[in-house]
């Protein structure tokens, strides 16, 4: 496929937008993901469906991608955006493209470290603005330098690799011996097992694994559409939660509002607009200038600017408030938004004269809550909601259905924005007690358990469709030749090989083998196995 300069530039821009945190804060959950990235690339290159399908397959490899505390194995933008574009322009078939995507992702993994380090410098510019009491300056530093850096870091390599690299890859693939191409395609068919294995390592519990098998069998024997399998999963989840006795909703704790909030309740200084503005800024810019030194500290201060402007008048007070919130902060941004609500309530109280709300009081609430909420938040948003909905979206996309990416974006955005808003407002209403109220309400456990059931069912079904490889081995007894795959394995359990590979990789990861080791094993087995004639399509 020929690529025009205009298309290459659009791809470069798309790669940046995918990596940034924009798009009302759901960017990390939507455009960052290869399913969506691939669809966008396909649209730019004039073949949405091919892009979407390739993006979906790539995303399966990264299904278990969870950035716990900012440690990322491989770069999703390199894999999703650049990988899809390279695959389409160089005219590779999907499995072959998949085998190239993983090394490509690793190539980009240094960008994260570089960015987190460089952004640490910009924070000090924000410090200078804060000392002068300039809320605008702090906001500008949070938005611009980090994002300009990100634009350079992603757009340039994306442009170079796609525009100049695609013809090169194309001509290399022409001279590569066919056995190697075949082997790479085999590797590409096996790699999604890594994504599923990684996710299982994170979310699976042995006692819930029957649901994984259920999804797998529904897909492989009944060939049911992904949405129907998801409905089966949902039914399973509801039944499981009802009958396993974990649904113990305790009555909400005493209804009296915490005493320390009473003064704030009497004089509401913060308007609804200030509040929504602060929440929206956090949603959008929490990771705009993410850095090792303060993590989301600058994002926090930026989100508070409308509150600070409302509550404080003198330059000294504004400067002090900005500096107070420019300190280290790191949490899961959506579940953790309860901390912001609490902080707004405390600032409001402080501004209306409550002397017991000292800097230390505010700081200790923030720093005490951010860790525990990150733990819960990551497991809910990144560990359950995202992969479950992604598996659904990928499944639909693989059937060539544009509803895959669209439905995924709608569902995940609703969930993320809903959680963020709910947590923020609860925090503001109840103060720090909100955290205990929410956790003690007893809904978290049944919800997580139910979501795990649904997730495992859908992921099981996905394993049946995206992990694809088979053996060419045959046994000759006298005049009869028995094909191992079609005559034996398929008659025992269809998909036995993909299922075993997925479970084997899960086991390896569980034994602390690094994903990188697993990748190397898969490449070695796929290439050598194909070369020896053991693996292949009969």
């Amino acid at each position, binding site marked *: 496929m020929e690529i025009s300069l205009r298309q290459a530039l659009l791809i470069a821009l798309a790669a940046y937008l995918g990596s940034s945190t924009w798009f009302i804060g759901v960017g990390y959950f939507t455009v960052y993901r290869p399913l969506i990235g691939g669809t966008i690339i396909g649209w730019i290159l004039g073949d949405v469906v091919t892009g979407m399908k390739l993006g979906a397959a790539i995303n399966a490899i990264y299904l278990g991608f969870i950035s716990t505390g900012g440690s990322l194995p491989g770069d999703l933008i390199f894999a999703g955006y650049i990988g899809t574009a390279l695959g389409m322009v160089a005219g590779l078939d999907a499995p072959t493209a998949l085998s190239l995507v993983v090394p490509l992702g690793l190539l980009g993994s240094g960008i994260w470290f570089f960015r987190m380090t460089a952004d640490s410098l910009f924070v000090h510019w924000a410090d200078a603005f804060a000392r002068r009491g300039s809320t605008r300056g702090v906001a500008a530093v949070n938005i611009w330098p980090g994002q300009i850096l990100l634009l350079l870091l992603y757009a340039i390599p994306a442009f170079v690799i796609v525009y100049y690299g695609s013809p090169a890859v194309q001509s290399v693939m022409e001279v590569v011996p066919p056995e190697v191409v075949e082997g790479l395609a085999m590797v590409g068919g096996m790699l999604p097992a890594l994504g599923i294995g990684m996710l299982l390592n994170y979310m699976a519990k042995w006692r819930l694994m029957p649901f994984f098998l259920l999804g797998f069998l529904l897909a492989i024997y009944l060939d049911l559409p992904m949405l129907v399998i998801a409905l089966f999963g949902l039914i399973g989840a509801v039944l499981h939660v009802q009958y396993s006795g974990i649904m113990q909703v305790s009555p909400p704790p005493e209804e009296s509002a915490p005493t320390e909030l009473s003064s704030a309740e009497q004089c509401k200084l913060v308007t609804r607009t200030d509040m929504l503005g602060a929440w929206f800024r956090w949603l959008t810019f929490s990771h705009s200038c993410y850095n090792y030194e*303060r993590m989301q500290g600058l994002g926090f201060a930026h989100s508070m600017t409308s509150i600070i402007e409302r509550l404080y008048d003198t330059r000294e007070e504004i400067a002090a408030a900005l500096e107070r919130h420019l300190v280290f902060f790191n949490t899961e941004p959506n579940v953790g938004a309860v901390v912001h609500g609490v902080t707004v309530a405390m600032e409001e109280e402080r501004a209306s004269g409550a002397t017991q709300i000292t800097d230390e009081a505010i700081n200790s609430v923030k720093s005490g809550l951010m*860790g525990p909420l990150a733990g819960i938040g*990551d497991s809910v948003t990144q560990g359950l909601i995202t992969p479950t909905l992604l598996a659904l979206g990928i499944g639909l996309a693989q059937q060539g259905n544009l509803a895959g990416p669209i439905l995924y974006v709608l569902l995940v955005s609703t969930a993320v924005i809903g959680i963020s808003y709910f947590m923020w407002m609860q925090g503001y209403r109840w103060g720090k007690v909100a955290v205990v109220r929410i956790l003690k309400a007893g809904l978290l456990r049944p919800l997580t358990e139910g979501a795990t059931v649904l997730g495992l069912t859908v992921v099981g079904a996905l394993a049946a469709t995206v992990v694809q490889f088979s053996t060419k081995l045959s046994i000759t007894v006298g005049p009869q030749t028995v094909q191992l795959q079609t005559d034996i394995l398929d008659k025992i359990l269809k998909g036995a090989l993909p299922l075993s590979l997925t479970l084997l990789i899960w086991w390896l990861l569980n034994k602390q083998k690094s994903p990188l080791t697993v990748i190397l094993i898969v490449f070695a087995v796929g290439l050598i196995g194909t070369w020896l004639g053991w693996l292949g399509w009969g």
Partner: protein
Amino acid sequence: MMRVARVRIDDRLIHGQVVVKWLRYLDCRQILIVDDELWRDDFMQSVLRLAAPSEVRVQVAPVRQAAKLLRSSTLEAMSRHPSGEASSNGHGVLVLLRSPQTALALLDNGFLFSELNVGALAAGKGTTRLYKSVSANSEQIAALRAMQDRGVRIYFQMVPEERPVEMSELLPAR
């Protein structure tokens, strides 16, 4: 007797890396947070307990009491067996601290651990960055050095899959 799987400084205490990676890696079902201030803070204690997975037991203890409890414990070698096999049956306890000073106080009170993992210490006023997510001010560095001088092996490591970096390499002994 209690099996202490690791003593770790992490000022965010129980968060994603700890819950998802370390507990599983170390095969721990118990977390002991040693902190005088948190011991007096009922609210934070309930948050910490509620934030941990339901099968994990979280305790908060003041330095003196914790040292007494830990004095008789066995501290496992830093890394598990190279094969990745859990080196013991039964679940260990992960000791979490918010600051190097607390670690030093534990040592002073008789809990003689030989290795200390520094995972995360936030940057703040007057801190220098020692390693990725580890920053420390002069008092914290002094406490780290004091422990180093007493033969404690101190290493920086955020997550299990990351290579540990020795403090002796980053901050050579004077």
